[in-house]
């Protein structure tokens, strides 16, 4: 660089231009550095927020974890209640909701990936499913209230299950379609060439090849609905007593957390934090498991 400079030093104009260019270059790289620093800062803020949430949960919730949380049902303030009915209720509703939603989602995803490529109906279904994926979950709750709770005499666990199933469907549709689309044509052709009908090819070859991806979708659906509160407020309502009946109001962890966190009793608020800790780490663990399953398949 200095050699070039000296060889042209007889031309004052060139020197000036070079200095201008150097200054410009400095400014450009400075601008770049500033933006890079801001981006690093943004990422650090994002990570700090996650850390803050997790730390808050651990600090406030960990001290309250005891055997009683898992063996006692919710009780009036001051009498050492637990969260047993809420945990069991959440498990029941999540499992049934996912069990109803998954087959439907699987079939829709199959339809989109195998039968409806480029068709108008297929595009419409894909569009609607995508919208449902991000639709406000509280409206699903209102919908099921009008459809199931109001006509059939009251809040019930099964209404909660149905609301969760509606949320599960688009999640499973999305992953199923994506995973089926990734399966190589050669694999399908091989199955067809052996004389397998299309449905057998799909069920025995494509589903098997896409198994990890489909399992990932189901796990993500479990993680999503396990933490849902709003749709359950209007369907299974919550229940402070022990009840396994699907036709009666049923407790769930998120709704119990909601009721307890806003209460004026210290032991209830403490239990809300314990519940929040359990549900968050449960959900995050399932999420990470889903990623591991997906990566293991590749």
């Amino acid at each position: 660089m200095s050699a070039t400079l000296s060889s042209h030093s007889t031309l004052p104009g060139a020197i000036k231009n070079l200095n201008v260019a150097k200054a410009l270059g400095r400014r450009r790289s400075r601008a770049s550095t500033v933006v890079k620093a801001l981006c690093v800062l943004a990422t650090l803020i994002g990570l700090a927020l996650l850390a803050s949430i997790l730390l808050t949960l651990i600090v406030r919730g960990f001290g309250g974890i005891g055997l009683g949380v898992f063996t006692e049902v919710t009780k009036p303030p001051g009498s050492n209640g637990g969260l047993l009915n809420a945990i069991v209720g959440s498990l029941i509703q999540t499992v049934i909701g996912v069990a109803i939603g998954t087959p439907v989602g699987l079939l829709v995803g199959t339809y989109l990936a195998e039968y409806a490529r480029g068709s108008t109906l297929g595009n419409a279904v894909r569009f609607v499913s995508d919208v449902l994926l991000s639709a406000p979950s509280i409206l699903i709750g209102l919908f099921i209230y009008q459809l199931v709770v109001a006509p059939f005499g009251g809040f019930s666990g099964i209404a909660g299950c149905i609301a969760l199933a509606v949320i599960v469907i688009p999640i499973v549709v999305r992953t199923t379609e994506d995973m089926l689309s990734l399966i190589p044509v050669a694999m399908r052709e091989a199955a067809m060439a052996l004389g397998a009908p299309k449905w057998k090819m799909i069920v025995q070859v494509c589903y098997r090849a896409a198994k990890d991806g489909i399992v990932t979708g189901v796990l993500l659906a479990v993680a999503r609905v396990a933490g849902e509160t709003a749709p359950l407020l209007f369907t299974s309502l919550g229940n402070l007593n022990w009840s396994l009946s699907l036709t009666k109001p049923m407790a769930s962890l998120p709704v119990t957390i909601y009721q307890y966190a806003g209460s004026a009793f210290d032991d209830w608020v403490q239990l809300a934090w314990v519940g929040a800790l359990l549900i968050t780490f449960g959900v995050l663990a399932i999420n990470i498991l889903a990623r591991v399953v997906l990566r293991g398949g590749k």
Partner: protein
Amino acid sequence: MQQARRTASRGANLGDFVFASLTRIAGVFVLVLLGAIIVTLFIGGLPAFEKFGVGFLTSTDWDPVQEVYGAAVPVFGTVVTAVLALIVSVPLAFGIAFYLTELAPQWLRRPVGTAIELLAAVPSIIYGMWGFFVIVPIMAQYIQPAVIDSVGELPLIGPLFGGPAFGTGILTAALILAVMIIPFIAATMRDVFLTVPPVFKESAYGLGCTTWEVMRSIVIPYTRTSVVGGIMLGLGRALGETMAVTFVIGNTNRIATTLFGPGNTIASLVALEFPESQSGSLKLSALLALGFILFVISFIVLAISRVLLRPRLKV
């Protein structure tokens, strides 16, 4: 032999027919589901629409005693909190996406990306508790008094930052919403940034562009529509968020004149008022009508988002 082959092929045809029909029925079911949600909410809200007419949209009343209901306040709160949340979250999400695609060392990309995505997996009720017990005290003790004493004294924008420092309110709700939608916007932006062909970027680097110049002149123009689509996706999420907002917005049916003032959103109002509504009452109908309005707004936003994103990305 021929008989056997015919039976086999008929069996295959039948199996194919049954399976194809099943998947098609499931597909149509999804369409019916969306239609049913819209129709159910509309029919449920019909008594309120009939009673108040167009005035339902412009009325700021919410008076269960006199049975007068209007949607203006919650609609205002819904839109304002969502838009404020976007203003806060878009620059942060952009920074994160830029960092994850261009700046971060390869080994760091996956763990950091996963951590940001986990932020999206945290249930919304947890954001509500975190907001109420952690962010609200910080707002009340430090941020709001400081802002009221400094920015609040300025002409023009000063009045926006007035009012008592309760910690809750429109701005706090918007901040919590911003945190909740950052991962959605950041993940979408990262995915669309990754669709830029490396050759484009390499040629710009070859011409001596800095990283930021490549971002500004190559990556952003190439992905502009999809980036807007990702932002709309975040907006759609923010509009319908319920539990987190309910905890921190203050829940007052009044149009807030300051950012620290309390307010409500459609979702928070529905969540709070629903337990006190009799089945078949006008109040319940008004809540369902609000739900219908929210559904229409989110549907439009999400539809735009999808149209913008689809060409670049299968979202």
